[in-house]
């Protein structure tokens, strides 16, 4: 797939504060088009915050996030906030999947997927419904189009949420711990869907605690700790031959926890 339908992201000198708390410190990270980047690190390290800066759900105070050369959220690097309208336009080509799914409970699976197609892309209801059904088919939920979220399992809900994002035909997909709220036996079905999407050549940024998944699917893995980007390297290097003691320590606790 060409870079025409996959975005690249350039993060430079990114700084983020919550009042006096320095949540992200001078982050520099290149996310190439069509590749999968996994963000890992201990909880509270700032990986979700970093992910949320990419579509400006979190405002940042220093540096910039550029998507295909266009700064998001600001008019220019260090400039004023960009207009809400312009931000909405940029967000249309960025899909996001949340830890808690955030499906709209008053709409069926199909309505959840079709809503933004109608309200944001301006498709007719019939066309949106057709596209939504196709997107649900793709994540293996072709038979659940009329189900309300509370009738679906966590894994099914998350797959609807993925379909909702993917139906918009984004050039970039952000996943914020997509399997952390799931029962262990439901994790696999969601990871399979993400893996399939990755093979289509969409740019993806995934915050995850699933190290096996990251090792398998990522083109590069970024390790964060205490708001700093410690290292960004191919998974083999991070997982087999970590250069930094902090990564080693993190992986050791991870392995210790998963032994029984």
């Amino acid at each position, binding site marked *: 797939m060409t870079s025409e339908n996959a975005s690249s992201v350039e993060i430079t000198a990114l700084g983020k504060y919550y009042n006096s708390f320095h949540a992200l410190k001078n982050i520099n990270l290149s996310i190439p088009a069509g590749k999968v980047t996994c963000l890992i690190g201990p909880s509270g390290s700032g990986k979700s915050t970093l992910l949320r800066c990419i*579509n400006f*759900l979190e405002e940042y105070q220093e540096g910039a996030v550029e998507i295909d050369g266009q700064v998001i959220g600001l008019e220019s690097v260090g400039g004023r906030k960009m207009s*809400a309208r312009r931000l*909405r*336009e*940029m*967000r*249309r080509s*960025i*899909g*996001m999947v*949340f830890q*808690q799914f*955030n*499906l*709209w*409970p*008053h*709409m069926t699976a199909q309505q959840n997927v079709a*809503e*933004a197609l109608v*309200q*944001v892309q301006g498709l007719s209801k019939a066309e949106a419904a057709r596209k939504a059904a196709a997107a649900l088919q793709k994540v293996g939920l072709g038979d659940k189009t009329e189900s*309300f979220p*509370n009738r679906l399992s966590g894994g099914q809900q998350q797959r609807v*949420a993925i379909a*909702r*994002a993917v139906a*918009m035909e984004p050039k970039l997909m952000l996943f914020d711990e997509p399997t952390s709220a799931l029962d262990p036996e439901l994790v696999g079905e969601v990871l399979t869907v993400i893996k399939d999407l990755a093979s289509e050549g969409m740019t993806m940024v995934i915050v995850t605690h699933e190290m096996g998944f990251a090792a398998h699917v990522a083109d590069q893995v970024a390790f964060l700790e205490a708001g700093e980007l410690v290292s960004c390297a191919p998974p083999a290097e991070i997982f087999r031959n970590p250069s930094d003691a902090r990564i080693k320590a993190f992986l050791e606790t991870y392995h210790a926890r998963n032994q029984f």
Partner: protein
Amino acid sequence: MFSWSTIVENLPYLLQATRFTLLVSGLGMGLGLVMGIVLCVARLSPIRWISRIAALYVSFFRGVPLLVQLLLAYYFLPSVGIDIPPLWAAVCSIGLCAAAYIAEILRGALIAVPHGQAEAAAALGMHPFTIWKRILIPQALKISMPSLVNELIMLVKVSSLVSAVGIVELTRMSQSISAATFRPLEIYIAAAAIYLVINLALAGLGQALEKRLDY
């Protein structure tokens, strides 16, 4: 002896007066709902002074007894040269007071909708107006329905207070007929039954609405 005939004979008068009870509480509800939505949006506004004014409004109308508000409207407005019929003064008083409660009910319901709901919509590039209309308000409406029905039933009962400014609604009429017939027990039982029928109907309507909003 309990006199059924007293009730039957006076029922037309009671029903006649019930029209005013329905008129005052119905119009009060309408005004209260519209004003309540406006107040709620104002209260949640990021602009400080707008939110402040809405908070002040709520404090006043919730903090002063409705009877006092009615008497204030009745005596105060004419004294500053505003001459409106007592019926309209009563409707306005009830509506303005209900608005304060309804605004808080709606605000509570909106706060109860998880933040991620709007966030998911914003991440898709949805306009804030659309997010309110399609995502937040439908969910808030469902959450607030029981409290809202409660408030509306309250309004019907509270409308008996407008007799203080000379409007002959169901309660006032009952008092007059009791005095004339010396049959207070029968008349007040009849009045109670009429109030009960109105409010049961309202509760039924609310339940039907709740069912329709269910998912």
